[in-house]
């Protein structure tokens, strides 16, 4: 078992308890998709592509009052240490659902009745926190597709490692740590749109963990904004 934190409070990958991994986002990297983004979040390498609003197939899924959002989160067979069966696993189906529900409140689906917006996420390499990283990329890809949104969606996890609440749990910490709490927020509207928890927390730790994750989401939001600015206004400034 690896030591998850040393006596100086430094984590197994050299970070402090409140430090994010390196995050970089590129916007509009796919030609065919209406919107796209590529994120590197620690060792995660994830693509997101958005198509739509477009006609719904199969037709019976269409909603007369509003558009629908579909989401597929998929891991490449080579994305993890042991080869992953390419067929969607139960875990991937669940993650697809929670990502869809995290994006849905941000997208103005009422403006696009009888259409679908498809969000495709491909995890090329997985590290801890891939659902949050995927969500961060998907939200940017939606914005890049020019789809009207109430807010961006920014996601980050916090957790409990070596009896301490830490920001942004990596793979080792997820496997061997005590708790993992992925969160997504709409930063300007102050709403939590994704939340899960695996692991044991006291009521006090639960509150701290929630606040820590939200702090991380806000840092991610700034990185997302910068990436969009970079794409649409050149030098990352105004």
């Amino acid at each position: 078992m690896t030591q998850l934190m040393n006596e100086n409070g430094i984590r197994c990958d050299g970070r402090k308890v409140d430090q994010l991994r390196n995050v970089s986002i590129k916007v509009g990297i796919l030609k065919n998709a209406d919107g796209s983004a590529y994120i590197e979040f620690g060792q995660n390498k994830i693509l997101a592509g958005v198509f739509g609003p477009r006609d719904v197939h199969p037709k019976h899924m269409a909603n007369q009052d509003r558009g629908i959002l579909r989401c597929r989160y998929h891991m490449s067979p080579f994305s993890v240490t042991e080869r992953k069966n390419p067929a969607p696993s139960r875990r991937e189906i669940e993650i697809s659902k929670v990502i869809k529900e995290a994006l849905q409140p941000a997208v103005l689906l009422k403006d696009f009745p009888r259409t679908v917006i498809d969000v495709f996420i491909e995890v090329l390499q997985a590290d801890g926190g891939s659902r949050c990283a995927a969500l961060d990329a998907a939200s940017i890809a939606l914005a890049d597709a020019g789809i009207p949104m109430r807010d961006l969606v920014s996601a980050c996890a916090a957790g409990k490692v070596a009896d301490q609440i830490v920001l942004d749990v990596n793979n080792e910490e997820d496997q061997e740590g005590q708790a993992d709490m992925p969160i997504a927020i709409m930063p300007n509207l102050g709403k939590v749109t994704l939340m899960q928890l695996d692991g044991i927390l006291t009521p006090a730790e639960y509150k701290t963990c929630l606040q820590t994750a939200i702090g991380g989401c806000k840092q991610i939001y700034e990185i997302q904004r910068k990436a969009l600015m970079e794409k649409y206004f050149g030098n990352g400034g105004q």
Partner: protein
Amino acid sequence: MMADSVIVEQLKRDRILELLKQGKRLDGRRLEEQRPLYIETGVIPKANGSARVRLGDTEVVTGVKIQPDKPFPDLGDKGILICTAEILPLADPNAEPGPPTEEVIELARVVDRGIRETEMIDLHQLVLVENKSVIGFFIDSSIIDADGNLFDACSYASVAALLSCTVPKYEIKDEVPALVEGVNSKPPVKTIPVSVTMARIGEHIIVDPTADEEACMNARITITTNSEGNICALQKGGSDGFTVDQLIKCSEIALAVGPKIRKQLEQLM
């Protein structure tokens, strides 16, 4: 046909929203009150453990089968525990037979997570030969009548079936696990998980939503606590979100409602 049911839905929706403004619910419950919970165990003698649970008009039958299996590749020092769920076609006019929908997969995984993350069953005690042979607990829930909050109904039924199960003894003979006839033990239970599912309708948080209430909800949350009063698993669902204050309130409700259910479950041991 379709048009008729939509009108009823709209009228019901208006009524539910109107009552909530006065702090009331359609079936007369308080906002933080669960429906009556009935638990009967040992209903399927061929299973190693079983339970039939009614939560209001939602009804679930859960069976536990215990048999030797190979461990997961990266968890060779632990037994296997897998929860599944199925909404039977007879439970709901909208349910269809076939591969599980994403809703059902989420349901099973939330139930599974509650039992796994609280460490209810000490999986280390289920190893026959490390990395080779372990005891597996297969916990399968069949929903036979659906009226909302399948999460808690399946969770209580799964926990009840586990608490009341008997574990057959296996020994390694000629390098394969063999059943030792007539020797049973109690399951290695460490804590009792209790899930509490809440719905947010507008600004109101209600516990244990019915199907009608779920049709009106903005978002949903399931929080599982253990016997020590810690929060061990959580899942937010639904197409809208929660504020931080609401999430803290929900955790307090889960911690307040849990002990009563836990007491009912403890009597099954």
